């Protein structure tokens, strides 16, 4: 896919040359970049290097390897994504649990409103609204950049809010199922307190459902970091890829795409490990 993109994105030769360059200049550059060879040769060479994590030199930032630039920015993106997911879980799971416990009550209705708000607000819009109110209007938080915990609050909320609704509803329905089960009846029968029935006996079982969902949406969350980073000027791989695309810096774009794919694989692996921690039935397999 990264390879296909290099053709869609436009010729790097055109992008790199000054406007008054001659056809000869263009030919020379094409040769040095290896773009004059047949497609399948280009592709084979691309794959060979991609496997080694080598995408060549950046076109925009001369003299630096594309991969090196991406790795420099990666920690910022991971920090943002993890903070956002933590925010989603910390907000969504308790609301989901309490909505199930107080099914059809006031709390449940409150939860439904939250869910509705969550899914109708796209992250970039929420981001702009946050900047407008908390940043510009009230001046509580810095509107852009990074450096302190105060910088991460708004982008993390903008990115995390979107998942809140889904995690909440999944937690709620899983909790409703679990609370109806025989082993919850047995726990109550033993005289276990309601708090422990809900937060220990039931939640540990119900968590498996939202966890599965997290595994599925991780890819989407990582993709959405791009938009949010750009909105908040967060110096991660998202703003990097934006700059790279605008500068037609294909090696960097490719490196980011590969890293995103790798994050996706690693994150799914971590989710699988979490599964095994929560549910002993999975440990056997």
């Amino acid at each position: 896919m990264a390879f296909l993109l290099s053709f869609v994105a436009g010729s790097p030769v055109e992008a790199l040359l000054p406007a008054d360059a001659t056809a000869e200049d263009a030919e020379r550059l094409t040769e040095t970049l290896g773009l004059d060879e047949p497609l399948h040769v280009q592709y084979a060479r691309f794959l060979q290097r991609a496997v080694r994590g080598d995408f060549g030199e950046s076109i925009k930032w001369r003299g630096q390897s594309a991969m090196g630039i991406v790795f420099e920015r990666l920690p910022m993106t991971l920090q943002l994504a993890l903070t956002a997911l933590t925010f989603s879980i910390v907000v969504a799971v308790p609301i989901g649990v309490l909505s199930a416990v107080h099914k059809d009550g006031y709390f449940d209705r409150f939860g439904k409103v939250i869910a509705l708000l969550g899914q109708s607000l796209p992250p970039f819009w929420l981001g702009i609204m946050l900047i407008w109110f908390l940043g510009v209007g009230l001046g509580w938080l810095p509107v852009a950049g990074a450096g302190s915990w105060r910088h991460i609050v708004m982008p993390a909320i903008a990115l995390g809010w979107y998942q809140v609704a889904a995690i909440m509803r999944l937690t709620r329905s899983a909790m409703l199922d679990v609370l109806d089960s025989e082993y919850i009846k047995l726990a109550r029968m033993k005289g276990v307190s309601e708090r422990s029935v809900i937060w220990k006996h039931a939640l540990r079982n119900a968590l498996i459902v939202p966890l599965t969902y997290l595994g599925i949406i991780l890819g989407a969350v990582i993709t959405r970091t791009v938009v949010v980073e750009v909105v908040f000027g967060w110096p991660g791989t998202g703003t990097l890829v934006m700059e790279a695309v605008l500068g037609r810096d294909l090696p960097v774009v490719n490196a980011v795409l590969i890293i995103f794919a790798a994050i996706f694989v690693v994150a799914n692996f971590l989710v699988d490990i979490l599964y095994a921690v929560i549910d002993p039935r999975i440990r056997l397999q």
Partner: protein
Amino acid sequence: MTHSDSDVVLAVENLQTHLYTKRGLVRAVDGVSFDLRSGETLGIVGESGSGKSMTALSLVRLIPRPAARIVGGSVRLDGEEILEKSEAEMRAIRGEQIAMILQDPQSSLNPVFTVGDQIAETFQLQGKQPRGRMRERAIAALREVQVADPENRVSNFPHEMSGGMKQRVVGAIAVARRPRVLIADEPTTSLDVTIQAQYLRLLRSIQQQTGTSIIFITHDFGIVAKMCDRVAVMYAGRIVEYGPVHSIFATPSHPYTQALIASVPSPDTKVERLESIEGQPPVPWDLPKGCRFAPRCPFVMDRCRADYPPMFATQSAGDGDAEAEHAAACRLLEGES
């Protein structure tokens, strides 16, 4: 009742539990009364949907919320009214005074905790104790219900055990704190016949050691014959006949009981569905006004349909002898007594 009250552990009087369903009001338990005496086993028998489980859950106030509500009656444990207790007081009673074995061993244990932890939790509720001591007590509890190799089994998860073994663990949890009353709601329906017999023997021997009283809910008249001292027959939310097991088998007096027993060719046959009785059980949200069995009863009379028949002592009931008390809610007995 005529026998001495000191002997009665659990006295249930006119218990009424209603369910508010989409189709309407269901009187799942509609005026159930019985006494449970010290050390005895009382059977509750009846077709599916007759309200056996709902009765059992009402006794510990764990009926499904918010659909069900206990709307009337009285449940006294050692003379103390349970229906007036606070939720905190109820928690102290559950497991300590009244314990319950649920129907399905496959789903009665929490899949994410070891069986040892689940047994230990019962003891923890009596007061915090060191972890090592808890483990010892859990192992002892497993040994008591004859689980082989309890030292290793204690760290098993439920999915690592067979159905029969899981049901033993559930039994161990139930008797762990030596409750006064043990309610067993069809504890063996999902087990195969040999495991079932072993489990029933185990329950009996635990009862002999601990002197606990058992309420044994079942479809199976064969088990009633083996396990129970007395039996109550339930139909559409009401007890239609009760008495000592031998007396019920010898002279079943309610036409429903007669049909139930007649439909069991030998005491070892299970009654899942009573094909031999004409007609269907009444729809629970639209019960007949008088005797609920009237639409299916071969001996139905006009006055059966007018109002609900009271309990009449049967002929086999010994005069004033509490142990032999045998009665049925049927107008056929009206003239006799």
